[in-house]
């Protein structure tokens, strides 16, 4: 080892010894640092070797991308048969929405993107107008999709595919937030009757599975309405999904309410603000801000839960896929269908999850400042 001598205070910064930097050192440190570590690396590598090549082969290398039916696919390649998905792609996207009106679905997808940018990106241009637009979006989209007022009306039983997922998801998200806020405030309220009602509602909803509520919607909700009125099945589902996620939302908001320092409430009281004014101007903005990660996580849960509608007969992508499997032309391709739908959900949910994580980090750094 070379040993230069320097005067005190004049020792230069030296590069670290070569055996502690660079890829080899990284590998030694992270993969081979101890016998256990070596075993783990070997096991992981073996696992990857077992999983990745066959999967790649099935999904890409040995897959058929064109073909008229399953047998044609099989004749071409032993792997996946993606021809099925591409043939049914429109069905997966629009369900049974009338061909000539599909531009309306496209337009609402586009508007959704605009609304999302305004909500999610805090430095978007025209953010304020964007936020107003986002609040109006559910109604605009509802008009576009359902028709009426100048547009050709479309029955809700024509809804399906990714479009249905978005309809259920966006409606649930848009309406569960305000209801959730009210429920959370109700749960914290000084008024006993209101508090009991809120607690009862929240705990009841959280105690039962969503699917049972959907069953209630599909089998017995009509009994509770005045005789002769019938309720659209999709609407009933939307109501249930909204109520369901609003209970979970309420718990997230309650967490936020409890995290706000007591001084904030006291300061608002001291300024002589009325309950609703102080909530609207002082408490809720802070609560919403710190609860956003929790809210987004609830949204992810809601979004994934939209798949449950297939059990009561609505056709979201999973339902479209399953009903397509019944077609003798394509029977037995369940793996392709499920993988395709899984990728769709993974992309959207993972995106939302990363966004929530980003917000959490941002909140943390803002807090420290």
């Amino acid at each position: 080892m070379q040993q230069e001598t320097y005067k005190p205070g004049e020792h230069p910064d030296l590069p670290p010894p070569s055996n502690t930097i660079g890829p080899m050192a990284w590998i030694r440190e992270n993969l081979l640092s101890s016998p256990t570590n070596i075993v783990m690396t070997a096991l992981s590598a073996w696992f990857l070797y077992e999983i990745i090549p066959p999967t790649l082969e099935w999904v890409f290398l040995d897959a058929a991308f064109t073909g008229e039916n399953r047998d044609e696919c099989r004749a071409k390649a032993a792997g996946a048969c993606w021809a099925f998905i591409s043939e049914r792609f429109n069905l997966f996207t629009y369900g049974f929405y009338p061909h000539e009106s599909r531009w309306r679905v496209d337009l609402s997808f586009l508007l959704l993107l605009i609304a999302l940018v305004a909500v999610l990106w805090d430095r978007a241009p025209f953010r304020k107008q964007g936020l107003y637009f986002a609040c109006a979006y559910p109604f605009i989209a509802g008009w576009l999709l359902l028709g009426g007022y100048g547009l050709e009306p479309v029955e809700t039983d024509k809804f399906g595919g990714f479009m249905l997922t978005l309809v259920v998801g966006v409606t649930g998200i848009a309406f569960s937030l305000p209801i959730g806020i009210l429920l959370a405030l109700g749960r914290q309220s000084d008024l006993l009757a209101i508090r009991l009602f809120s607690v009862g509602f929240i705990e009841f909803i959280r105690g039962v599975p969503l699917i049972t509520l959907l069953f209630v919607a599909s089998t017995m909700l009509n009994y509770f309405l005045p005789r002769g009125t019938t309720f659209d099945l999709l609407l009933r589902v939307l109501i249930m999904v909204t109520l369901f996620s609003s209970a979970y939302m309420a718990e997230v908001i309650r967490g936020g309410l409890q995290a706000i320092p007591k001084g904030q409430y006291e300061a608002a009281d001291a300024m002589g603000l009325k309950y609703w004014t102080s909530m609207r101007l002082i408490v809720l903005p802070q609560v919403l801000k710190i609860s956003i990660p929790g809210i987004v996580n609830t949204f992810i849960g809601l979004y994934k839960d939209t798949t449950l509608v297939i059990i009561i007969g609505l056709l979201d992508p999973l339902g479209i896929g399953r009903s397509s499997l019944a077609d003798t032309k394509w029977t037995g391709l369940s793996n392709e269908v499920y993988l395709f739908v899984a990728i769709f959900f993974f992309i959207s949910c993972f995106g939302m999850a990363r966004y929530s994580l980003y917000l959490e980090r941002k909140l943390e750094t803002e807090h420290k400042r």
Partner: protein
Amino acid sequence: MTGMVTSRKGISLSRTWNDKETRSVIIQIVAICLILGFFAYIIRNAYINLEAIGKGFSYNFLWQPSSYDINQHFIEYTSRSSHFRAMMVGILNTLLVAVCGIALATLLGFILGVLRLSRNWLTNKLAYVYIEYVRNVPVLLHILLVYGVIVHSLPVPKQAISLNEGAFLTNRGFFMPAPVFETLFWIVPMLILAGIGFMMWFRKHARRVQDETGHHYPVFWIGLGVMAGIPIVAYFILGAPITWDIPELKGFNFKGGMVIRPEFIALWLALSCYTAAFIGEIVRAGIVAVDYGQTEAASALGLKRNRVLNLVVIPQALRIIVPPLTSQYLNLTKNSSLAIAIGYMDILATIGGISLNQTGREMECMIIVLLLYLALSLMISAVMNWYNNRIKLVER
């Protein structure tokens, strides 16, 4: 302030409204009236509607024969049994998948959490990819996928994959030999029980010895030896007093032995793997949340790595882990109702599914189903709260 205002004469309407207590009473009365009114309204509607189609509201149907089959039942059940019995079968099936699911999900979840904290980059990233993939895909899709793989990819019984002597994987389920116990076999479970009893005593004893002399017994290994080792040795000394009822291929399916149905396997695996991903994250976050200074202080005192974990990190991490773990257990139990998608006969599929369709008693059946799930949720919450309070007391 309240007293002063109300004691004044001539209480006008606006003054009443501005008085804090009176106002709260008024609001509450209005709220109660609205809520009660709403319920009265929908109950009246329901009554009129049921009347109009001549159904009424009655639970008598529960005692009529169900006339449908359930392939997995732990209590005597045939299609001539009552709807009530079908419901009991459903409850037991839900409990079975919930308990097995919670056990497996906890095990897998803790393993995943530890792997996520592993210093090994590759293992760590593998666990990360698994967790992210599984968490971000709907659980229903997982259930259908696993079920699809079992039903479509596993062979029919005629070409069953033979795992071992007498164990077969088929798309009709996992067949394996059923044990038939001979007379002397009772000694083995007795030894296991005795071993457990000994362990309970030995743990206390070891504790006492340690307190008095400082000597440490390897409690875990001794325990394993006594509880598992001795019974195994005894089993062979007794001449392996178990014969196996091996499943045999008769016609298109296996006869004899034990079978785990594909519906159960699919639901169990899918629910466990799905929930395990969430638990893994919870465990990781719980352990990370324990300040690193704790580990440093404990190692600076000379404690070995595993002792640092057992004595310092894990007791503190558990406090953070248990509450979210509870809600995962609740989620798993509630998600087990998705069984209906693949025809596993749980609560929802029996009383809320086939029974409902056959009798047309939507209201009655759904009320039962909702109450049963509520009861189940409350039970799990109660148990976990008890546990949470216990570990809290230990650490204050």
